[in-house]
């Protein structure tokens, strides 16, 4: 842009096949050719991996050089004259020779190889190879295929030894246990005997393998590329917001691929996004509207089901009974908006909540500010000089954001992790600051205080009030020094669980502002940012507007035709508590009986509510307790938009029609609204028009009110918990091979707290609301004074609660 070009970026002029081209210094010939639309054949080259120069397929002639050079390793130079296979005999001869070499040991597997039809080797051979082979001796043989993980199968005979898979694992994912072994024609990809290949990114090696050497155990022999339909859409399994291509064969979902998007997911996705699609076509899907009659669910027509619900809504309204909405966080934005509008205009209530863990007043303030504020984007991670994560395990909770942070770490950017349990993700230069759950607010208050002592004058009054009485430890001092040192170039990424510690989220927000950094909120679920935007919250309306502000409410008169209710609604906890008095309790994609912080209370609330309607794909713990279950479409079955963690709108596009009679949530809501006698937008376009009218232009951050800080955690052991990427959730249904790659449930404890426990022995953890039994792992990846139990362990403990651990008897 306006900045002067550095030597690195200064353009270099050269010709390729006689055409002039000008590219930044340092560009490789192969990339310069791409700029001109010329594709130099390659196998080992991959733009996101370090150059290797191993396959030699990309040979080109460079004037003045005796030998042909590899285009994928040779940077351009001023005045260079490059000739590719189109104009150079030498280049063409070189490439043909290499191709012939690659084929001598390549099996004649094409008819039964998954790669057939999308294989660069096949294409290359077809385009340039001779019809028959001069090579008549035996080919190299290996046992095949061999599984290298439950998801990935390796065929060494087909491998062209390009080292893309091994470089991906080493350079991109940081999972080293796949390597090249042996040498000569016996060189082969392999895994170690004593170290399994464990990676949540393993599917990418299948996708970038240029031949059919790595195939997926789930897709093998299922379809040919030309026999599939593809839809480009967005993954909804976490807030990273990866672009994916969903492929179907005769209506059956068979494969998900990463789609290139260099601003978000580069060319990668995680294994959950890739392999966890079978749920959508599970036989357990609810495919018809169900209404409870005499205690049993009975399948009914949409007309009947909608009428039953509408009648209850009308009756409740007439009886002056309140209704309430509990939303999930996987809705697409249009559904979230429709739901928020439905609650306000049809049910007439602000009793709406999409949160699973409830925070303090600072959480309300941050959620209100998100739609109006410029927050962190992936590009901020790319250019940051310091990255701090607080209360989030990116590797498990937003894997592609993790890869971006890892990429920054590989460049030498310091990465600081503040959490109760050190992430398993392997980031070069990462430093971990252990913090017991519940103490994050105190830690941040100390950092704020140390910042002020270092002359930072950007802290707001509520932060300065909150930090009084906290004496910064040396750790806090040091963090403050790091933050102050990179003023303006820091990215602070916080997890949603920080909200459960009153004051912490607000402090993180205000500290970010004080050091002129960018703040990123990394919720666990794909629809969380959209839910926040839509106002699926008792105090918020779409666009972060406040229910209590007359000015804010005024925006809706024109769009909705009615004013939203003006009293702050009740949050999820209060809704469950007062369930017996509710008219209608509507669940949309929510399963609070499984994942609400106090799920026992949620289950009781659902049991006690007189009438529960659930929009869902499955008969979950919660839907089972409903009176009416309305089948909702899966993400692969509908169109829409999702805001990823950055707040970037990502398009969602249907790959298959909805299962059975399922419909998109907004369509269901529109029909109920119609039947209950209200005006309601009927189409996606109509919803989008309203959303557009309510959009707010994001601006620079304002400080938020921090409020009362969380009390420090109890002495003794406290619980830390979150869900790993691969859990036992509803949306893992049917993904058996993927589930086999999930880590087993273990209770983790620091050696200082182990008191005689040894790794592997069964223990029982007692929490106020329940207990869990599992083997223990004694590890210094968990903070002292902390017991970590993964959230899917089937256990009702909450982070920050006092717990005890003892040997399991018997």
């Amino acid at each position: 842009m306006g900045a002067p070009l550095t030597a690195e970026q200064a353009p270099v002029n050269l010709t390729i096949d006689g055409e002039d081209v000008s590219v930044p210094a340092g560009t490789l010939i192969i990339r310069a050719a791409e700029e001109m639309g010329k594709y130099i054949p390659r196998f080992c080259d991959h733009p996101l991996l370090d150059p290797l120069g191993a396959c030699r397929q990309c040979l080109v002639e460079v004037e003045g050089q005796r030998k042909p050079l590899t285009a994928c390793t040779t940077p351009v130079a001023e005045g260079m004259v490059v000739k590719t296979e189109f104009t150079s005999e030498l280049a063409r001869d070189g490439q043909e020779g290499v191709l012939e070499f690659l084929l001598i040991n390549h099996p004649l597997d094409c008819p039964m190889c998954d790669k057939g039809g999308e294989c660069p080797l096949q294409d290359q051979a077809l385009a340039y190879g001779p019809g028959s082979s001069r090579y008549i001796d035996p080919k190299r043989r290996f046992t095949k295929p061999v599984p290298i993980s439950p998801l990935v199968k390796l065929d060494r005979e087909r491998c062209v030894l390009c080292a893309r898979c091994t470089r991906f694992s080493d350079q991109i994912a940081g999972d080293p246990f796949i390597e090249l072994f042996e040498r000569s024609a016996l060189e082969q990809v392999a895994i170690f005997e004593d170290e399994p290949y464990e990676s949540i990114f393993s599917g990418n090696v299948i996708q970038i393998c240029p031949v059919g050497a790595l195939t997926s155990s789930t897709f093998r022999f299922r379809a040919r590329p030309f026999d599939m339909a593809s839809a480009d859409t967005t993954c909804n399994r976490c807030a990273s917001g990866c672009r994916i291509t969903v492929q179907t064969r005769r209506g059956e979902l068979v494969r998900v691929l990463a789609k290139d998007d260099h601003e978000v997911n580069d060319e990668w996705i995680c294994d959950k996004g890739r392999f966890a699609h079978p749920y959508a076509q599970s036989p357990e899907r609810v495919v018809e509207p169900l209404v409870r009659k005499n205690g049993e669910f009975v399948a009914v027509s949409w007309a009947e089901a909608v009428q039953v619900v509408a009648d209850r809504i009308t009756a409740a309204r007439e009886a002056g009974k309140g209704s309430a909405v509990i939303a999930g966080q996987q809705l697409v934005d249009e559904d979230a908006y429709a739901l928020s509008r439905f609650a306000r205009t049809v049910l007439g209530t602000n009793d709406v909540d999409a949160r699973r863990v409830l925070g303090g007043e600072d959480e309300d303030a941050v959620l209100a500010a998100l739609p109006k504020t410029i927050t962190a984007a992936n590009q901020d991670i790319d250019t940051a000089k310091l990255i701090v994560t607080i209360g989030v395990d990116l590797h498990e909770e937003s894997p592609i954001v993790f890869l971006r942070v890892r990429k920054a770490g590989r460049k030498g950017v310091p990465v600081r992790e503040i959490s109760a349990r050190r992430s398993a993700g392997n980031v070069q230069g990462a430093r971990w600051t252990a913090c017991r759950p519940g103490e994050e607010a105190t830690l941040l208050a100390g950092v704020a205080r140390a910042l002020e002592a270092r002359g930072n004058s950007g802290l707001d009054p509520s932060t300065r009030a909150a930090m009084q009485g906290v004496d910064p430890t040396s750790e806090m001092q040091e963090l403050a020094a790091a933050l102050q040192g990179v003023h303006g170039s820091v990215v602070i990424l916080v997890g949603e669980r920080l909200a459960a510690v009153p004051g912490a989220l607000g402090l993180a927000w205000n500290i970010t502002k004080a050091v002129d950094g960018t703040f990123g909120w990394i919720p666990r679920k794909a629809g969380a940012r959209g839910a926040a935007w839509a106002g699926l919250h008792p105090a918020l309306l779409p666009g972060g507007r406040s229910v209590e502000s007359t000015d804010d409410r005024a925006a809706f008169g024109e769009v909705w035709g009615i004013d939203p209710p003006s009293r702050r609604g009740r949050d999820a906890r209060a809704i469950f508590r007062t369930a017996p008095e509710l008219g209608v309790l509507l669940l949309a994609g929510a399963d609070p009986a499984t994942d609400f912080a106090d799920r026992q209370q949620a289950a009781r609330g659902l049991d006690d509510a007189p009438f529960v309607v659930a929009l869902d794909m499955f008969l979950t713990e919660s839907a089972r307790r409903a009176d009416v279950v309305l089948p909702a479409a899966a993400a692969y079955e509908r169109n829409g938009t999702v805001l990823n963690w950055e707040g970037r709108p990502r398009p969602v596009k249907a790959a298959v029609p909805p299962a059975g009679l399922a419909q998109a949530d907004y369509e269901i809501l529109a029909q109920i609204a119609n039947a209950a006698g209200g005006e309601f937008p009927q189409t996606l376009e109509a919803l989008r028009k309203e959303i557009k009218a309510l959009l707010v232009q994001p601006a620079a951050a304002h400080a938020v009110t921090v409020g009362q800080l969380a009390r420090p955690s109890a002495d003794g052991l406290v619980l830390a918990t979150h869900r790993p990427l691969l859990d036992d959730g509803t949306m893992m249904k049917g993904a058996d091979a993927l589930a086999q790659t999930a880590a087993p449930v273990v209770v983790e404890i620091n050696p200082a707290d182990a008191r005689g426990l040894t790794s592997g022995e069964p223990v029982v953890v007692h929490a106020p609301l329940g207990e869990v039994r599992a083997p223990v792992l004694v590890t210094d990846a968990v903070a002292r004074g902390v017991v970590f139990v993964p959230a899917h362990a089937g256990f009702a403990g909450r982070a920050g609660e006092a717990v005890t651990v003892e040997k399991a008897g018997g």
Partner: protein
Amino acid sequence: MERDPHQLIEGMAVGAYAIGSTEMYIFCRGEFAYAARQLERAAAEAYEAGILGKNIMGSGYDLDLIIHRGAGAYICGEETALLEAIEGRRGQPRLRPPFPATHGLFSKPTVVNNVETFACVPHIITNGADWFKGFGTEKSPGTKMFCLSGDVERPGNYEVPFGTPARDLIEGFAGGVKGGKKLKAFTPGGASSTQFFGPDKLDTNMDWESVMAAGSLLGTGAIIVFAEDVCMVRAALRYTRFYAHESCGKCTPCREGTYWMVNTLERFENGQGREEDIAIMNDVAGNIIGRSFCALGDFSIAPVTSTTKLFADEYRQHIAKGGCPFDR
């Protein structure tokens, strides 16, 4: 390394001092266990004597020597593969640039030289450069170790001035072809000599420029002698097998090309060679040279190209006889 390891250590130490380095490595091929033990012993003696270690002879200069034993890969003679191996990775050559002189071992500037080069240093320092230049020719000054092996009476290493005629080495020092047989061929510079020499080249002076003028390379100075009754196809097969076995596997031409040549040569030995195989092998060789990642691939073709050029009739005899004519 085996008999006089100290001259090597001394030469390296002088080199290290000259460039201000404080760390030295000797990478010793895994097979050379005796040499490695000798070096370890010599290094211990040098430490003992205060010639290595902290504050050498009161100079304030520290210097350490690490003897690193390889795991037996020929490719680790390639300087960047050697560096990779010392760093604990697979011995495969690195992309250059950056060159070792700027980004070498552990990304530090590094000088990589042959044992022979360092071993000359103490003598040059002691006697002066002019003394050293007094040996050899103008373009190839000094002395050279020639390793004579194969069908000679007295195989061994002989240090002579550059420019000594091959005849003096083979017939003089090494006592001539074994058993008084006639000479069929010899390599001027080891298996990697780009061209093997026949008896007509016996009077070639063994220095860089003369060997090159005669159509080959002096390489390592390993003179391997073949007597009249040696099968050159089998010799080519043995060499090519060696290269195929030692190919690091990284790049396609070397990995697959050597494999292909070995299979073809084996067929000749088994009596299934075809006339067209001679041309195909040369074509395969042409697709390796200049296209592989490092010099190992480039040199791997020499046995095939040399023998098919000089001894094409032996290949044809294999075809005609349906097997090896030298088999008794």
